[in-house]
């Protein structure tokens, strides 16, 4: 009896959360809805499902190029942020540094940095260095913007590594590269994955910089392409729905498949002080 009530309560919570996700599922349904039925709601369910919108988006829009740009830029940003962030975080977590308190404060403060505050000088800088409308420009800007959080998270994870492991390595005469290769990186792996996911998501989702520093489809990322999605005489709601689903694909895969790491990173960012 009690057990039955319990199961019922569980089902109710799941139902409530499923209805919370309705905006997403509604867009998913819209992306398969025939053009003629888009503006004829109700009925809620379409008479049939169609792939026409996906075909239109993939064959006749800039979305495939935007997906490639986003994928490349987010991947390179993640790699660069980790390459710079892991050594930096190790120094912050383990080594004596001149002005360490001030440095930590600066890192925390820059996680709160509003993008709008630097967008105008960065625009001038990008123009002066000829980096507008390039992958490199966005990768550099995304990396520097993600770096404070990357370091913050990684430093927390590094502090969880037993220091004895590192001491044993230095006694064995391992140099700095050996220490990272054999001790820090392997022990850091789960934290590294969590940090990488959050950095990737940040770059994939980022809009303000991407919108400002890109000019053409050579470098436009998926949020920018979606925001600028063309409609000539009327809004192509079905195509927009299909494009939205493509833009959400990596985040959805991460949430469903790598949830453990994602939650770990989210919580670590808030709890470590």
């Amino acid at each position, binding site marked *: 009896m009690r057990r039955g009530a319990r199961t019922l309560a569980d089902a109710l*919570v799941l139902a409530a959360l499923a209805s919370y996700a309705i905006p997403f599922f*509604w867009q998913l349904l819209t992306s398969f809805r025939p053009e003629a039925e888009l503006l004829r709601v109700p009925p809620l369910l379409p008479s049939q499902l169609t792939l026409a919108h996906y075909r239109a988006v993939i064959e006749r829009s800039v979305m495939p190029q935007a997906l490639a740009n986003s994928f490349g830029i987010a991947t390179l940003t993640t790699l660069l942020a980790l390459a710079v*962030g892991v050594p930096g975080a190790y*120094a912050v977590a383990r080594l004596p540094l001149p002005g360490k308190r001030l440095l930590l404060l600066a890192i925390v403060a820059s996680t709160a940095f509003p993008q*709008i505050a630097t*967008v105008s000088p960065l625009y001038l800088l990008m123009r002066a260095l000829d980096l507008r409308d390039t992958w490199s420009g966005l990768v550099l800007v995304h990396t520097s913007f993600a770096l404070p959080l990357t370091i913050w998270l990684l430093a927390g994870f590094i502090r969880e590594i037993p220091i004895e492991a590192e001491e044993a390595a230095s006694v064995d005469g391992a140099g700095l590269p050996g220490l990272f290769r054999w001790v820090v990186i392997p022990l850091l792996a789960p934290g590294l994955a969590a940090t990488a996911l959050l950095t990737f998501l940040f770059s994939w989702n980022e*809009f303000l910089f991407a919108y400002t520093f890109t000019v053409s489809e050579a470098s436009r990322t998926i949020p920018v392409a*979606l925001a600028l999605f063309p409609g000539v005489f009327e809004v192509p709601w079905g195509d927009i729905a299909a494009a939205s689903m493509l833009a959400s694909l990596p985040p959805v895969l991460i949430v469903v498949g790598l949830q453990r790491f994602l939650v770990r990173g989210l919580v670590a960012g808030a709890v470590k002080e």
Partner: protein
Amino acid sequence: MTRREVVNRRRGVLLLAPTVLALGTLTVYPGVWVLWLSLQHRIPIFGVSRFAGLDNYAFLAVDSRFSSAAATTIIFTVTSVALEVALGVAAALAIHAQRGGRRVALSLLLLAWAMPAVVTAKLFEWLYHPTAGLLNVALGGGHALNWLGDPRLALPAVVLADVWRTMPFVAVLCYARLLAIPAELYEAAQVDGAGRLATLVLITLPMLGRILLVAILFRTLDALRAFDLMFVLTGGGPAGTTETITVYAYRALFQTLQLGFGSALSVVVFVLVMAVAWAYLRLLRTSTVTA
């Protein structure tokens, strides 16, 4: 200093050098540059470029568009953070009470949080469609509310989209904290004969206190600098009712091309965010001392 200390110190500087270089050139340097820009009249298309002192800031005091944007920013921040926290705690408690299906529950919740804000904007633009939008259909077809076109409805509509998108963040943080509350506490409460409500008010909510402060801090800072959602969903309209300071700054910079004035607006956002962060951190510190 021992030899080892010298080595460690040198290693520290070496390992941190790339970070300092990256943040120095792409965050700190632009951060100083923007202050300099904000002191100038700079409108490149008219070839205007001269030092203006504090003129741009003085203008803000009499600029009604700025005071309206400031009010919108504050209303947006307070209402969306309050709703996110209330709903987030409720969702966390509900998921925590579940015996099965927690993973699915978290997936459904995090879906909204993980997508680009531009996608959220497109999702809600479609939900808010005056005739075919799900929201109006659900409300009954009689009155076609123009959610994004009506100056009284547009800001609530943007707040709703923002709450939908970010409540899961608060919920996940609270849920993780709930998992860490020792079971003995609840057992002791049961032995003392505390009811469910008493347990919630006397144990669960106080244990959430600190993580809630952190969540509120993060969410407030994000809400103060929010841009994507209103820029794409309403573009600041109708009649400027959803224009926050950040959107105003962006339009001044890149649509009317007032580089100096736009930079002054950006500096205001920066100062606002830093002031709130500083105030919260002080609050957090005192709450730790008393707790």
